[in-house]
């Protein structure tokens, strides 16, 4: 049934938008990357491990991961007022939780790894693009990681499960309307690290959506690996 549904940009139900992935885009950073799903473009920088201030935030047992996510003011049609909003603070936190399981900071007590994620251009799926960029940036920074984190939004328009919704699909209003379900996982493990959903979807179809998400995440993983390899080759 999904196959007959016409998506506005003509994609198949399980087809991601064009992925762009590039590692090493910010020379100052210890690790950095750009990741785009079509018109949604995210960049991420990693700084650290470095000393954490204020001192009371320090953890003597292991280093902490601190994520910041936000939109640049001109990444959306209605100018976003610069500075953190409640939305961006929430996404920063879920991004932290999405990335944490992949990274081992036990060797860095009292230190912090800062992950800075900014959206240059937004067309839905910004948090997932941000997580994909951050994951590559952490890898480039050479931090001990169990795996890369891969992320994608799946969702539903009316009764049709779709991968990687764009803004037009996210705003779909007919039938059952739009459901948006952001997922992140460790690429090679059955460990989901982000699950955030808004919309209207039957419980059984949630499973269907997750399965589709896991399936298409493989493409994200391949793109990330290629970008990391390209970066190493360039350095040589």
């Amino acid at each position, binding site marked *: 049934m999904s196959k007959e549904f016409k998506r506005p940009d003509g994609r198949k139900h399980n087809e991601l938008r064009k992925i762009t992935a590039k590692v090493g885009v*910010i020379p100052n950073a210890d690790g950095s990357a750009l990741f785009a799903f079509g018109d949604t473009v995210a960049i991420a920088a990693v700084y650290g491990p470095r000393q954490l201030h204020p001192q009371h935030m320090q953890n003597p047992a292991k280093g902490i991961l601190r994520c910041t996510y936000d939109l640049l*003011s001109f990444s959306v049609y209605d100018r976003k007022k610069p500075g953190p909003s409640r939305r961006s603070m929430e996404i920063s936190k879920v991004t932290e939780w999405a990335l944490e399981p992949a990274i081992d900071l036990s060797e860095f007590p009292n230190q912090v790894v800062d992950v800075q994620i900014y959206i240059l251009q937004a067309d839905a799926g910004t948090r997932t693009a941000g997580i994909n960029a951050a994951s590559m940036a952490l890898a480039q920074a050479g931090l001990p990681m169990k795996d890369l984190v891969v992320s994608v939004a799946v969702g539903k328009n009316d009764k049709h499960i779709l991968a990687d919704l764009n803004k037009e699909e996210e705003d779909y209003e007919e039938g059952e309307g739009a459901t948006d379900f952001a997922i992140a996982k460790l690429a090679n493990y059955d460990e989901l690290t982000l699950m955030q959903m808004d919309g209207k979807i039957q419980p059984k179809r949630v499973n269907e959506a997750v399965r589709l998400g896991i399936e298409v995440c493989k493409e994200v993983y391949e793109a990330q690996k290629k970008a990391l390899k390209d970066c190493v080759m360039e350095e040589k």
Partner: protein
Amino acid sequence: MSSMDISNLTKETLKRMFAENKRFDYRELNDFRDFEITYDVSNKAEGNARVKLGKTEVVVGIKMAFGTPYTDSPDKGNLSVSGDLLPLASPRFESGPPGFESVELPRLVDRAIRGSGMIEFDKLVIEKGVKVWTVNVDIYPINDDGNLIDAATMGAVAALRNGFIPELDKDGKIDYEKKSSKKLPLSKEVYPLSFSFFKIGDSIILDPTREEEEASDTRITFGISKREGEHMVNSCQKKGEKPFTTEEMEKMMEILPKKFDEINKKLKNFL
């Protein structure tokens, strides 16, 4: 890379080298690094630019919105320049309330542009005294390797040059999604630039890298433009406790118009 403070040894070395007219990257003291400008930042903006000046990278976007004119200028639109020194761009930048640098940067860019008369504010009026266009120019460094101010001014000018006024729908609301061909009202010949001179010991340099900037004692930024073949300094601001001498001022005034012509010519290749 997590700390960027430079050592006294580096500072002394730089000072000595500048006195001998030498730089780590073999440039002359007044040379700019190579730069390029592209327009690939955001298709949601009503004008944008990405400037790469050496390793320094700045993105600038224009957002147009309705505004109310100031009571003392009911027949003029508004310009609002803002900037955010994201911790993304440098280990020096910290989250939290804006520090002096992030307040100063957009103000210097604002004054260079405003003073030059590049924007024809009287053509940004929708209803006199009631409703005008506000041109929001937002500046974000992506990688700070020195001389952010001059890079930001170039970026702002480039973004304004490809800026446009969005269409209105039938209810008079802004329709950001509709393609518009109405360019921003700009003077055809005025292209402001800013030039920041940095003083280290007795030497004065332009376009410092982060390291050179860190080593410097003081800075002075000039906004400059050219109209009908005549150079005009439109703004000036000195930073830091160390003074400049009148002789140094005269020397800078000699360099400034020459540098303007040189950089302006290069800049136009990208506009």
